[in-house]
């Protein structure tokens, strides 16, 4: 697949259709690909990688790049990334006519930290061949079943369908009937005290690095509320429980109805806090209260928090509904 993609992209470079491409650059290992801008076909041929570790969602980087005056930028988007792209488009953060999208097919991505946890930290290289992941370590070759090391967010994949592209590699995928709200339901069925202690345990690990906010394709404000010195909520590192709670409630609230559930927040969290559960809770509530809505599905439908219905449910429903303890 990688070589086909490279071949096609080189063609686009040569025909001057595009002036740069944003993709995944080879790192020191198979798994530490960094999102990067390729300015020439030579660079791309040499350093572009598309493999099971090309997890980074590249759509947000387009904001900065599509503001450049010159030429078209090519971007590689996996199916879930296309939803983020549409969202950005809908909010006028990027200009469509300056971007060329190659949709790349996506099997589940792998999680290097799961592989390391299972096989040790002395990993030299990892590669996946269908169902088995083969890992070269200082200790020799080891194998592990792919199903054990799939990235968490891919375990609950919502869609294999590319909702926007100029060119697609592979077959058109389908929207999946995912079980992504299962974990949210488990929490909903807990007692409030249990939920509170669950979230305290999780959020107390937060180091306040803002990675979840900065990687999020829906967090695109020029000036974030948490960067406003006069807001009274601005903080570099949370000083106590309250600030940890507040940051995460507000972060999730600010993307409620706009979050496409791409899962980048949880993927990049250095402390593995399941932040996507907060976002999914909002998505689940929105579906329940205001009808099914998938952000990024199209660019016409208004986001749920920017519209209303005269007969919407009252906030007191939170107390009275039966399916949530």
């Amino acid at each position, binding site marked *: 697949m990688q070589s086909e993609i490279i071949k096609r992209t080189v063609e686009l470079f040569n025909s001057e259709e595009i002036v740069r491409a944003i993709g995944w650059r080879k790192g020191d290992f198979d798994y530490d690909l960094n999102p990067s801008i390729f300015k020439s076909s030579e660079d791309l041929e040499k350093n572009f990688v598309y493999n099971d570790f090309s997890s980074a969602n590249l759509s947000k980087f387009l904001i900065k790049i599509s503001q450049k005056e010159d030429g078209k930028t090519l971007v590689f988007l996996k199916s879930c990334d296309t939803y983020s792209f549409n969202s950005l488009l809908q909010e006028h953060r990027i200009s469509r006519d300056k971007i060329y999208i190659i949709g790349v097919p996506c099997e589940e991505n792998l999680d290097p930290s799961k592989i390391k946890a299972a096989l040790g930290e002395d990993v030299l290289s990892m590669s996946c061949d269908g169902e088995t992941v083969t890992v070269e370590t200082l200790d020799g070759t080891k194998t592990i079943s792919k199903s054990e090391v799939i990235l968490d967010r891919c375990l609950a994949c919502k869609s294999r369908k590319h909702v926007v592209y100029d060119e697609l590699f592979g077959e058109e995928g389908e929207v999946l009937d995912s079980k992504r709200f299962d974990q949210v339901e488990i929490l909903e069925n807990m007692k409030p005290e*249990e939920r509170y202690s669950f979230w305290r345990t999780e959020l107390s690990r937060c180091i306040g690095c803002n990675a979840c906010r900065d990687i999020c394709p829906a967090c695109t404000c020029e000036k974030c509320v948490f960067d406003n010195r006069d807001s009274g909520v601005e903080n570099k590192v949370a000083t106590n429980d309250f600030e940890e709670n507040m940051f995460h*409630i*507000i972060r999730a609230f600010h993307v409620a109805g706009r979050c496409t559930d791409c899962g980048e927040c949880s993927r990049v969290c250095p402390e593995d806090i399941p932040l996507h559960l907060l976002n999914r809770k909002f998505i689940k509530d929105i579906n329940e209260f205001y009808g099914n809505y998938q952000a990024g599905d199209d660019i016409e439908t208004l986001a749920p928090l920017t519209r209303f219905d005269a007969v919407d449910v009252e*906030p007191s429903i939170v107390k009275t509904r039966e399916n949530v303890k």
Partner: protein
Amino acid sequence: MSVKEKTEFQPKIVAFCCNWCSYAGADLAGTNRTNYPANVKIIRVPCSCRVNPIFILRAFQRGADGVIICGCHPGDCHYITGNYYTRRRMTLLFSMLDFLGIEKDRTRVEWVSASEGGRFAEVMTEFTNDVKAIGPNRKLEDLRCKAK
């Protein structure tokens, strides 16, 4: 009995009241000499949809035990649609607070018009009693604000 009464927990209640309805409703309660608990501190806002979720969290941080938002009845918003947005936002926010395990009875939205002085007092009394029953806010407190 009397000792118990003295030490009874007195919650701090923050009420965000829309300028065009419930704030006037509170006024009316006052001019009618209708009693409502002294625990309630009113903050006037131009519309219930002015209330940013951060305000609510900040109220808890600064020592509130309960936060209530009062706006015009749906359909009666001075700015035509403001309270419809409030309704959606607060439904989601309260649901999220619940999801984090914070007591559901600490937050409430009520629609109180300018003519409903009596209802204003009723709502406040009821809300204050609800919050009294669940006790002081511990889950969203900031100890720095409680010292001394």
